[in-house]
């Protein structure tokens, strides 16, 4: 076995790193490193720089503008971008909707929508969760009925990330009554400026406006703005959510954050001594670093297996569980390293600007979401139990 990357891979990483360092706007990078959300303009500028380099859609096939990379190269690209503080790619359009369209969309949808996703001409958001359909996603009640050549949509979505800056939304809606709740669902493609749509912000406890409620009141869209066949939405949704899992452990991001933790522990004084000189805290850092190494190697084993053509297995659930727990544990250690300073002053200036210390508390609270969203860790363990024990 060989755990080292070969020269090609190392060269590739250096090329990516150099590109990020000379092309990423320092202000945007700063925002990402503080755990704040870059705005749409900043993300678009960065995305278009990647597109210009031919790296705009790492996982897409070459015919749609992908770079033709291997699984390993895609993984390394994600890692370097995370380590360097680049904004995340526009995940809903690029990594969720696009693969579904490529497989189930009409030629017209593919030709029209994909380039707009790539360039962020369209910012897509995802309309899946509802107040009574969280972990139990198939319980969605938002419905659409066909009236002539239009779908008429009524209902409500919730936890819709960045709906307030999105151009379009893909929605899981009920288009037929069916005996099983997984049947009769469809995925519709809706413009956010369609009459009858109302977006209501949800402010989270980190003070951020990231998620929203989206209300549909007799919203009308063309009958053709549907993915694949009506009634098959559940299959498409599963395909969409199952896609692109190797980045799920967030190894690059955690690596960056452990670097931050170590730097901080060397600088900060607690109880009259540098925090790093407290053997208990130093053991805590060491444990986190070792856990991250185990997670990284486990991810690489999975990447390596996919590269060799193995089908994706239950490893993705393991990576999701441990990756999210580790993100949270590291964030907690960083907040602890700051001590009371992580809590104040809450805001400097008029807006949501904060000190770097307080940003770590906000990140700690923000990251509570990673064990809840995308299938809570309880759901992930249920899935693993089924696949491991067959019960």
């Amino acid at each position, binding site marked *: 076995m060989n755990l080292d990357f070969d020269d090609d891979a190392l060269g590739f990483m250096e090329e990516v790193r150099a590109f990020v360092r000379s092309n990423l706007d320092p202000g945007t990078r700063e925002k990402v490193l503080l755990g704040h959300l870059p705005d749409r303009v900043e993300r678009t500028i960065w995305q278009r720089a990647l597109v210009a380099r031919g790296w705009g859609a790492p996982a897409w096939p070459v015919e749609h503008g992908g770079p033709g990379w291997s699984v390993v190269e895609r993984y390394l690209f994600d890692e370097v971008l995370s380590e360097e503080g680049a904004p995340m790619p526009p995940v809903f359009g690029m990594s969720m909707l696009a693969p579904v369209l490529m497989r189930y969309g009409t030629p017209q949808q593919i030709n029209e929508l994909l380039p707009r996703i790539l360039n962020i001409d369209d910012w897509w958001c995802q309309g899946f*969760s509802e107040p009574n359909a*969280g972990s139990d996603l198939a319980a969605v009640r938002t419905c659409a009925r066909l009236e002539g050549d239009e779908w008429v949509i009524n209902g409500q979505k919730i936890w819709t990330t960045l709906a307030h800056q999105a151009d379009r939304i893909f929605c899981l809606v009920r288009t037929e009554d069916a005996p099983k709740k997984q049947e009769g669902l469809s995925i519709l493609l809706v413009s956010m400026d369609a009459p009858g749509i109302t977006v209501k912000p949800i402010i989270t*406890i980190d*003070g951020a406006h990231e998620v929203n409620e989206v209300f549909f009141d007799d919203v009308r869209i063309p009958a053709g703005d549907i993915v694949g066949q009506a009634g098959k939405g559940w299959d498409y949704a599963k395909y969409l959510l199952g896609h692109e899992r190797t980045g799920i452990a967030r190894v690059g991001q955690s690596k960056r954050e452990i670097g931050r933790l170590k730097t901080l522990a060397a600088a900060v004084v607690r*109880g009259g001594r540098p925090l790093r000189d407290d053997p208990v805290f130093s053991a805590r850092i060491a444990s986190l670093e070792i856990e991250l190494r185990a997670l990284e190697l486990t991810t690489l084993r999975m990447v390596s297996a996919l590269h060799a053509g193995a089908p994706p297995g239950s490893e993705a659930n393991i990576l999701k569980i441990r990756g999210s727990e580790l993100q949270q544990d590291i964030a907690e250690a960083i907040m602890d390293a700051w001590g009371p300073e992580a809590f104040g002053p*809450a805001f400097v200036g008029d807006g949501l600007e904060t000190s770097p210390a307080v940003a770590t*508390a906000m990140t700690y609270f923000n990251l509570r979401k990673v064990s809840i969203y995308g299938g809570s860790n309880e759901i992930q363990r249920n899935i693993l139990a089924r696949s491991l024990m067959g019960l």
Partner: protein
Amino acid sequence: MDFRLTDTQTLIAETANALVGQHLQAVRGGGALQASQTTSALWPQLGELGLLGAEIDEADGGSGGTFEDLAVILQALGRGGGAGAFGPVVVTAAALVSRLGDAAQKAALLPAVVEGAKRVVLAHHDTTDQGADDVATTAIPASGGWKLEGRKAMVFAGDSADVFVVSAHTAKGLTLFLVPATAEGLSIRSMELYDGTGAADLELNDCFVPADARLGAEGDAGDAVAWALDRANAAFANEAIGLMAELCDMTSEYLKTREQFGQPIGKFQVLQHRMVDMRINLELARSMAILAAVAVSDPDGRRRSRDVSAARAAIGKASRVVGQAAIQLHGAIALTQEYPAGSFVKRLTLIERSYGDTRWHLERFAKLADPAVVLIP
């Protein structure tokens, strides 16, 4: 051995819980509940009902009760989302004035604190390293008084204080001074903390206070400050119990009413057991909050600090378990400002890291613990 509340404490508990309960009902419809709001909104009533003066001597306008009376109030305020300035003003600074003040100082401050008309707070730590016990702030004799020089960081409730109890080194050692917020040479940078409570950074530049501003003997404040900080920590311990108890109730209720997969999510065994672990943590933490409340009156300072740190370490650990489980069991809703759980967890999270975090208290306990096992007290 007796764990029963006195009749007075039962009455205090009923009064405080009713007050908090009414307030919560009034604000629940109105959206976001910040930890700060309950106690600051209720401050006038706390004064009217005599709760601010529960422990202060009758001669100074109070009811002449015990720390345990305060513990009952702190738990009730915790259930309302946090005790805010109650710990800093009533438990910590007013007690220092009671302990060290001369007749004039007491008369000037304590009746006003009891009524809710004035707030006095302790400004001790120069930096946010609240586990450190060195103070660089100095006081130099000047004609008719003292000149103070230095800074104080993150003074809890310092944003709304009328008078600060400032610790500073004179030639003889650590000494306390009463410094009005309006004193010349004192600049106050008020801030809102992340849990919605207030604090302030102070700068003392050539700040003059008259001779009668000295609180207690010169050079002799070390023990009193340690005592006051143990009191502050015991207050945090009891406030945290209230916060955790409310989080447990809130979570139980949510598990019973929230439905997914056609049943209340509380039917899922994994969620049940996590809820049970929240309760177990709460019950054991509650015992330690009692210990802390009793310990602050221990004449043996070493044992007092040991027990307070034991309580804070245990409750700190419990706070993490309870806070994180409360969020996870609720799911996304707990992460919104609309829903109260998040605000409670924020306050718990701040408390756990203030005046020594769990690690610091654990280490202090280890140093103060008996080399052999502690037998039944």
